[in-house]
């Protein structure tokens, strides 16, 4: 891989051992994936935040690093609400380790926003055509597909390397040739809210790491619905980029998808039927993190009523702070609005036996990552279940 004179100096260790190793990571990945050179990134989102995932080994590594990030960098969700972890049922031992992890990241100049939806809180992190080094799979999908930026799905160390160096290796989704649609997906159905999660859950399993191009005649998915679609496909498959005709930015010209899929209402309904609400002892919303609009809908549905089951609403701290009246309205019902974390990455989820969610992503991950059975319902069904109406 070609390195500029300045990059070569970093690679040879002239700017210290941490930067040397970080550059070595970028070069090693560039060599593995056949990158010609490095490219500057506008922002970085770093995975490897929940202590549940990185453990003592990861914490030690992050704590040993020296230096400051070169570009704006924020974090993936942590294993707990950084303020209200006791209320979540997180143990003190875990909380101490999680706080140490956060402090280790803060020391490197990283902004302590723990969210899978960086684009919901900072407009300036990603724009059309920008190169990024983001980690969280749904954020990667949203950045590539809805914003039209360019990022691979970075692991924890490679994202940190990009943050400290300010660059990433130019391969994968940074290049037009890898952004061409591989599957045409025609869907004849009226879709709403969690239907997009169900659709993504189905399509991700089929196309795996492909690039689906959707035709959704008569449908106009909202940004939240696109968020749900991408998140589900990134979890049930490893889709990092998709297109929706006349809705998202367009693919580069050239090539035709090799395969075509046809889906209709029946197949969407089968997902709900297979993953039922029956027997759920908790309900969790906000995977990916709720937007202000979603908080508003939840507050509206809960208005004046009390929940009978544990109900978690997960969002980014900045969104909760900017919408404190909505948060208060939701919590008035007995529900919890948790920040910085979610049902997928927190160990607190493990005490439940079946969780109902409106998210196709949580549906994929809860059984494997938390050992909790999962049911899928619309937002209204989820709220009804929490209120004990079903």
């Amino acid at each position, binding site marked *: 891989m070609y390195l500029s004179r300045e990059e070569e100096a970093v690679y040879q260790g002239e700017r210290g051992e941490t930067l040397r190793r970080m550059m070595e*990571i970028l070069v090693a*990945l560039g*060599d593995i994936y056949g990158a010609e050179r490095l490219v500057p990134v506008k922002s970085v989102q770093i995975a490897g935040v929940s202590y549940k995932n990185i453990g003592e*080994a990861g914490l030690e590594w992050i704590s040993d690093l020296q230096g400051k990030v070169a570009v704006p960098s924020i974090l993936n969700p942590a294993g707990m609400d950084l303020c209200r972890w006791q209320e979540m049922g997180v143990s003190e031992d875990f909380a101490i380790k999680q706080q140490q992890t956060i402090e280790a990241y803060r020391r490197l100049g990283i902004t302590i926003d723990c969210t899978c939806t960086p684009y919901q809180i900072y407009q300036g992190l990603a724009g059309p055509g920008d190169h990024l080094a983001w980690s969280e799979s749904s954020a990667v999908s949203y950045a590539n597909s809805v914003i039209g930026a360019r990022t691979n799905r970075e692991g*924890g160390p490679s994202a940190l390397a990009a943050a400290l160096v300010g660059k990433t290796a130019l391969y994968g989704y940074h290049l037009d040739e890898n952004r061409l649609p591989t599957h045409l997906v025609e869907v004849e159905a009226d879709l709403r809210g969690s239907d997009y999660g169900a659709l993504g859950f189905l399509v991700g399993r089929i196309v795996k790491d492909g690039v689906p191009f959707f035709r959704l005649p008569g449908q106009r998915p909202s940004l939240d619905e696109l968020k749900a679609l991408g998140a589900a496909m990134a979890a049930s498959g490893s889709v990092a980029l998709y297109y929706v005709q006349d809705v998202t930015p367009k693919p580069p010209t050239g090539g035709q998808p090799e395969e075509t899929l046809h889906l209709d209402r029946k197949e969407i309904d089968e997902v709900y039927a297979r993953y039922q609400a029956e027997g759920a002892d908790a309900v969790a919303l906000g995977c990916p993190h709720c937007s202000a609009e979603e908080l508003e809908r939840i507050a509206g549905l809960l208005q004046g009523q009390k929940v009978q089951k544990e109900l978690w609403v997960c969002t980014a701290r900045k969104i909760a702070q900017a919408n404190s009246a909505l948060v208060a309205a939701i919590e008035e019902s007995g529900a919890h609005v948790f920040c910085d974390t979610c049902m997928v990455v927190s160990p607190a989820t493990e005490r439940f036996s079946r969780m109902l969610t409106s998210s196709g992503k949580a549906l994929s991950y809860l059984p494997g990552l938390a050992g909790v059975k999962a049911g899928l319902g619309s937002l209204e069904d989820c709220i009804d279940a929490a209120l004990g109406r079903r």
Partner: protein
Amino acid sequence: MEIKCHRVASGCARGPALVTLDAISFLGNVDAATGTVVDPAHELFGQCIAGKVLIFPGGKGSTVGSYVIYQLKKKGLAPAAMINIRSEPIVAVGAIISGIPLVDRVGEEILQTENGTVVEVDAAGERIRIFRED
């Protein structure tokens, strides 16, 4: 004997070879507390990788494996060096953050090396030396 290779993680180290035809998932296959391969399905089951020149086709599994390599290194239980046919990101990143020499792009004959043969990995010089007993 000297073999050309490609540098992934810098450094130079030597040790007795420990060879497997199986890919390694450091998360799950290897116990970070003892440096021993604990997966009964793995060819190296029961073997300790500490101080060895670990020769294997490449890594697989969870990206947390990179941190497991780091933890092994901090406990003095890591391999002295590693050789892959083709490195993938988990082992590459693990070796780099841990300061363990790692090279790849060598012919598959390297997997015929006998266990215990002394092997030196010189990543900066992009060469492997195999010291065969005569």
